[in-house]
C-alpha cells in the first residue's frame, strides 16, 4: 500500500481509538479528580456495558438500530446504578481513604468479572451494528459504523463538558473537587455528589463500551485494555484535569493508530507506557495537572 493511503488508514484507526478512549478516560478522570478514588474496576464497568448491550440486543425483537438505541440508553443507566450501589455500600464506608479504595475496587473488579463469567459465559459474543455500510475508498474499504462512533463519542463528550461547566450540578461537582469541606459548609451534600460522580464515571465507560461492542464483540475479559489505556491517558493528561485527559486521549489514540499500523501494536503500547514513565519523572502532575501543593 502507498504511503498516503497507509497514513490515512492509520489516522482513521487512531481517531476511532482516541474517541472511545477519551470517553472511557474522562470517566476515570472524573472519579479521580472529584473523589480522589483510583478506580481499578473502571475497565469492568466498560465490560459490563458491553455485556449488557449483548443481553439487550439479544432479547429484544425488532430492527438492529432500535435494539442498539435501547442498549445505548439503558446499559449506561444500569452500570451507573451498579456503581452508585458500590459507592454507597463500599467506598463510602471506607471514608474514601485512598489505599482502602484501591483494594476495594480491585475486589469489585474480580466480583464483576466473575459475575460476567457466571451469567454471560466465557465466549465472545457479537452485537449487531445499528446499521452497516462500508465506505469504499479507492485504496481500501472502511466500516461506516466506526466513523459514526467518533461522532457519537464527540457528542457525548460535548454533553459532559456542558454538564460540568454550564449547569448547577457541574458547579456543585467543581466546588466539591476544589474543597470538600468548604462545599459541605455551604450546604452541598457531598455524599450525593460522590455517588453521582462515581455513577457518571461508570456510565461514561459503559457508553464507550456500547459504542465499541459492534466493532469488538462482548467478552468477560475485555476490561483490561481500556483500564490500562485510561490510566495511561489520565496520568499523562494530569490527574483530574478534563482538558488534559482529552488532549492525552487524542495523543495516545492517534499515536497508537499510527505506530501500530506502521510498525506493531505491541510497540505502540510500549511507547505509551514509556511516555507515562517519562511524564512521571519529569512532570509528575501530568501535562495539564496542577502541581501538588
Amino acid at each position: 500500500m502507498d504511503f498516503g493511503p497507509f497514513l490515512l488508514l492509520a489516522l482513521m484507526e487512531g481517531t476511532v481509538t482516541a474517541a472511545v478512549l477519551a470517553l472511557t478516560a474522562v470517566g476515570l478522570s472524573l472519579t479521580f479528580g472529584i473523589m480522589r478514588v483510583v478506580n481499578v474496576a473502571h475497565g469492568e464497568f466498560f465490560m459490563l456495558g458491553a455485556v449488557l448491550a449483548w443481553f439487550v440486543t439479544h432479547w429484544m425483537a425488532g430492527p438492529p438500530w432500535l435494539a442498539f438505541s435501547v442498549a445505548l440508553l439503558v446499559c449506561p443507566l444500569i452500570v451507573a446504578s451498579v456503581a452508585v450501589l458500590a459507592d454507597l455500600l463500599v467506598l463510602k464506608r471506607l471514608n474514601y481513604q485512598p489505599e482502602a479504595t484501591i483494594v476495594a475496587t480491585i475486589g469489585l473488579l474480580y466480583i464483576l468479572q466473575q459475575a460476567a463469567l457466571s451469567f454471560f459465559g466465557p465466549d465472545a459474543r457479537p452485537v449487531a451494528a445499528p446499521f452497516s455500510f462500508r465506505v469504499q475508498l479507492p485504496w481500501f474499504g472502511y466500516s461506516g459504523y466506526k466513523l459514526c462512533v467518533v461522532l457519537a463519542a464527540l457528542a457525548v463528550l460535548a454533553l459532559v463538558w456542558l454538564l460540568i461547566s454550564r449547569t448547577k450540578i457541574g458547579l456543585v461537582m467543581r466546588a466539591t473537587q476544589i474543597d470538600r469541606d468548604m462545599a459541605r459548609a455551604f450546604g452541598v451534600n457531598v455524599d450525593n455528589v460522590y455517588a453521582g460522580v462515581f455513577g457518571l464515571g461508570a456510565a461514561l465507560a459503559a457508553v464507550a463500551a456500547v459504542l465499541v461492542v459492534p466493532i469488538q464483540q462482548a467478552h468477560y475479559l475485555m476490561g483490561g485494555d481500556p483500564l490500562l489505556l485510561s490510566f495511561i491517558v489520565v496520568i499523562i493528561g494530569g490527574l483530574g484535569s478534563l482538558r488534559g485527559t482529552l488532549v492525552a486521549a487524542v495523543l495516545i489514540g492517534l499515536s497508537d493508530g499510527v505506530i501500530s499500523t506502521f510498525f506493531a501494536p505491541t510497540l505502540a503500547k510500549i511507547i505509551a507506557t514509556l511516555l507515562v514513565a517519562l511524564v512521571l519523572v519529569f512532570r509528575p502532575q501530568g501535562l495539564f495537572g496542577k502541581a501538588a501543593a
Partner: protein
Amino acid sequence: MTNELSLTPSRRRVLQGIMGTGALTATGFFPGFAHAQSAAPIRLGFQLHRTGIGASYGRWYERTATAALARINAAGGISGRPVEIQFEDDGTDPARGAEVFGKLATEAGCDLVFGALFSHVVIGTAPRAAELKVPYLVCSEGHHVASGMLNRWTMQPGITDVKSQVQAMAPFVTANLGKKVTMVFPDFAFGHDHRDYFTAAVAAQGGEVIAQIAIPPTETSFTRYFPQIPAETEVLYHVMVGPAVLTFVKEIGEFYGTGAKPQLFGFMDSLEAVDIASPGLEFLEGSHFWEAHPRYKQADASAAETAYRAAVGVDDNGASVTDATDIATYSHMFSVWETLSVIKAGMEASGYQGPDDRAKFIEAVEAMTAFDEGEDHPQGAKTFNGKTHQAFGIQNISKVEGGKLTVVHKTAIEDGMYPDEVDYTTQAL
C-alpha cells in the same frame, strides 16, 4: 526484641515435632493411596479450556468427551471396567495448565490426562507429565509433539499436526489459487508452526511467501495489521484463534470491501464456532478453507460420520441440534473422540490395571501403526508413528458456495508425511 524472640520456637520443640511426624508416618498413621481394585472405574483427567481464549473450543470438547464416554461405557467400558472423566478448567493458561495436570494426576488420582488443545498450554504442561510419569494425550495440532520438543509421556494420536496439514495442502494452494502468498497468523507456537512449515511447503512448490504478519492471540482489533499485506499478494493465507475470530474475518471483509482482493485461503480455525451466515461475512463466498472434518455434512458422509455427528449433538450445518446459533468447533473436536478410542485400545492392549501400568500403556500406544476409519475414528483413517507419537490423517479443502462449505479436494495421508525428527522410544520411561 524480647517479644519477637519468644515467637520463634526453640530448637528442642522443632526437633520434637519432626521426630513425632516421622514416627507417625513410619507407623502408617497416614495411609498411602490404596491401589485401585480391578473392577474400580478407570479415571481419566481432562484438561479443559472452559474459560480464557480457548473457551469456545472447551465447550465443544467437553460435549464431545461426554458423548464419547457415554458410547464407551455403553459398550462395556475399558477392559470391562467403567470409565469416568474428571474435567478441570485450565483457563487456557499454561501456568494453570500445569497446575491442573498436577491436581488431576496426584490429588484426583487419574490414570492419565488428555484433551488440551492450545499449544502454549500443551508446551507448558508437558514437562509436568514427564516429571510425574503420567501419560498426557493432547489434541493440539501443534508440531511440538513430532518435533521432539516434548517427551515420551506426551502423545498426539487423535489429530494431524500442522506441519503435515500444511505440507499436504500447499500444492493445492499454489496450483489453484496463486504463488505469491501473504500469511496472517497468531503470534504463538501454533501460529509459528504455520509460519515455518507453510512457508517451506510453498517454497517447495515453486511459490513464495512474500509477507508474514503475526497477530497476538488476545488482539481484539485487526484492521491496522492489514495495510502490511503487499499489493501484489495473490493469496491471503489466514489462520486466527481466540475470542475475536469473528471480528477478524469481518474486518478482512471491511478492509477489502468491494475492491479487488486476493484469493483467500483460511484455516477453519479462523471460523470455528462462528456462523458463516453472520452479517459482514458475505465476502467469504468463493473462498477456500482447510477443514480436518467438514462442518457441513457432505453428500458422501460415511455411516460412522453420521453416527458421530448425532452422538455429539451437531446438525447437518455444524450447529448444535438444540441451538442453531451455537456453532461447533467441528474441525477439531473429533480429536477428543478419537483420542478416547486410542486410550481404550491402548489400555486393553497393555492389560492396564492401574497407575503402575502407565509405562505399559505408553508402550502399547507406541506399538500402534494405523487406525481404520469407523466409529472409533469418524474423521477418517490415520497412520500412527510410534517413534514421533504423532498421527497422520487426510485433510479437506472446502469452498464456500451458497453460504456453505463444500469439500473440493481431499489430500492423501502420504501427502502429509515427512521424515522423523525424533525417536521418543529411545527415552527412558
